């Protein structure tokens, strides 16, 4: 066991998977000698060399498009896109090809790639460095979408993603890259894709979140003094509805917390499904605490935009008072 940050846990997972399987290669902007702008690939270039850790031209569509080819050619590429705000140029290759290749060829060609992307706000970054596009890649069918909220899960989920036979977008909440440490086994282990984690049990309300927001949820729950069950989705697509529904049907109340804009976010889908599955059990409308339906503001206002302990606390009060 080692006491690791999220960045270190991811770095460790990359090293171990690259040692285990030489089909695994990393490509992206500045992932080589520089170790990535967040130092997630630190040391990998030195350890595995030019052939396996490749600084690419500055072109996101190129990174994903060639990764698709690499994957179809038998490798297990791990492309990095430097910030979620720069996924845009790669949107077409991701949704038109990576997501569709297996379906299109009825299994003839597949794209086992793991696309790593730092995501989310809260670090006082420039424009387009703070968004949360997980709903976009969940509405587009054919992808798996993962977002860890802790070093332990990060390592285990990343290993699962790399070994997954299908394309996985692995979103890394940059706000908690180094926010805390956790005991992480040095040996390899996997955390299954598609399984949520009940972070704490409770009977009054079910709170559902993922990524960096999980910590705010925890804080808000503790501050509220209430008996609230907290679920960390971990995987956003395919979503573990069973864990969610079992909980909400038990508590009768649900709050969903996410950074992305409210409209058509994952919260919308969860809310709709909760109603579909737990209608008779619901004691109050499902609450969503999310980003407003506005452009993610520059950093002076980012904390006004992001769901925080206070807004989550309000939702708790509102839902129990309903």
């Amino acid at each position, binding site marked *: 066991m080692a006491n690791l940050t999220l960045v270190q846990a991811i770095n460790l997972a990359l090293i171990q998977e690259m040692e285990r399987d030489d089909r695994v290669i990393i490509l992206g902007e500045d992932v080589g000698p520089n170790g990535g702008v967040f130092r997630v690939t630190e040391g990998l270039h030195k350890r595995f060399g030019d052939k396996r850790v490749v600084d690419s031209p500055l072109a996101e569509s190129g990174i994903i498009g*060639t990764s698709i080819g690499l994957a179809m050619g*038998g*490798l297990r590429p791990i492309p990095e896109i430097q910030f979620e705000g720069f996924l845009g140029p790669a949107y077409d290759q991701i949704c038109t090809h990576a997501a569709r290749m297996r379906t299109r*060829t009825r299994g003839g060609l597949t794209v086992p790639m793991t696309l790593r992307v730092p995501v989310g706000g809260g670090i006082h970054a420039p424009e387009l460095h703070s968004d949360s596009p997980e709903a976009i890649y969940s509405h587009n069918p054919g992808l798996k979408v993962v977002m860890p909220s802790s070093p332990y899960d990060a390592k285990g989920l990343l290993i699962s993603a790399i070994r997954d036979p299908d394309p996985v977008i692995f979103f890394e909440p940059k706000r908690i890259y180094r926010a805390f440490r956790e005991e992480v086994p040095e040996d390899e282990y996997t955390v299954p894709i598609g399984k949520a984690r009940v972070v704490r049990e409770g009977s009054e309300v079910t709170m559902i979140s993922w990524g960096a927001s999980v910590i705010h949820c925890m804080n808000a729950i503790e501050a509220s003094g209430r008996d609230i069950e907290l679920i960390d989705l971990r995987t956003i697509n395919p979503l573990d509805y069973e864990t969610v529904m079992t909980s909400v049907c038990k508590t009768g109340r649900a709050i969903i917390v996410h950074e992305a804009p409210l409209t058509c976010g994952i919260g919308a889908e969860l809310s709709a499904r909760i109603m579909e599955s737990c209608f008779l059990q619901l004691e109050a409308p499902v609450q969503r605490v999310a980003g407003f339906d506005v452009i993610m503001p520059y950093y002076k206002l980012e904390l006004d935009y992001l769901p925080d302990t206070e807004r989550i606390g309000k939702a708790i009060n509102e839902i129990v008072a309903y």
Partner: protein
Amino acid sequence: MPVSKVYETSIDRLSILEPDGTFDESLGKGVIPDGDAVKLYEHIMLCRKFDEIAFKLQRSGRMGTYPENRGQEATSLGAAYALESKDWLVTCYRENAGLFWRGLPMEKILLHWMGDERGNQIDSELRVTPLAIPIGTQMLHAVGLAWAYKYQDSSSVSCTFFGDGATSEGDFHEAMNFAANLDIPTLFFCQNNGWAISVPTSIQCSADVLAQRAVAYGMKTIQVDGNDIFAVVKAVRDAAAYMRETSKPAFIEATTYRLGDHTTADDARRYRDAEEVEEWQGRDPVIRLRKYLEQRDLWNQSKQDEMEARAEKTVAEVVKNAEGIEPPVTEDMFDSMYASIPENLKTQRRTLRTSSLGQDPSQLPVRDTART
């Protein structure tokens, strides 16, 4: 040196077999042995028949949109012939000739245009990718494929086909640039047929020749007469040898022309002159190839008749196979998305006929825990 020349280059055009049958022996000798020349000719004629029948299938409502290949066959066929079976062919949608030569079952192409994904379910041993609908996107896959093989120390290269229009897409640029800078042996084979649907090449590229595109990447480049299969074969063979030796990419601009409409949904008379079409009819790759063969006594009318009858039969068989396949079932759309179906999709799949939205709440296990 206040003004100094920092770069100089020039681009060649290669042709061997002229429209009138003139053949340049010095360049063309040994490029295609006689026996193969006959086979290639027969193959193009087979593709013509396929085109004709496919067109009729569409017109009679038995198939969706179809893009005729007529007039351009020498490009992809020449390339497929010059390359080895270990090399990947990453095509667009007007390369039937090359794909069939590689061994793709002809009914696959029909199935594709009949709206059936099984048309893309291709034995991966064939090393061809499915037809690419979104223009310009497949070249990056070709680069990735060649990269994967290079990584695995194979001498396979990839060859990707695309039109003049495709060279306007950003992905084209990124693919060329990746290949050039990362030393990936991909052959970029541009079929400049003068048009992208109704838009003339001058709007895609106002440079003198499309082959200039490659100069931006310091990439080896040449223009060939794409209706001259000898020139195509020679250019591709030279490029392949260069790529295998250097692990670098190469670019070929093949000038050609589609004699038909863009697809069956198009009416080319709306935007191009009959004279232009006529002029290009005279440059048809099969006319000159037939002249070549006849001049050498390798072909005659009776062979032609016999071959046409054979082609007719072959294509009829292909149509029968394509139309004879059992229809897909609704569930198919769920079954190939992932290596294994996730739970939530299983529910949709299971209830798609019994519930309006394919996720009947009563079938969700959690229903049992109802409190009220």
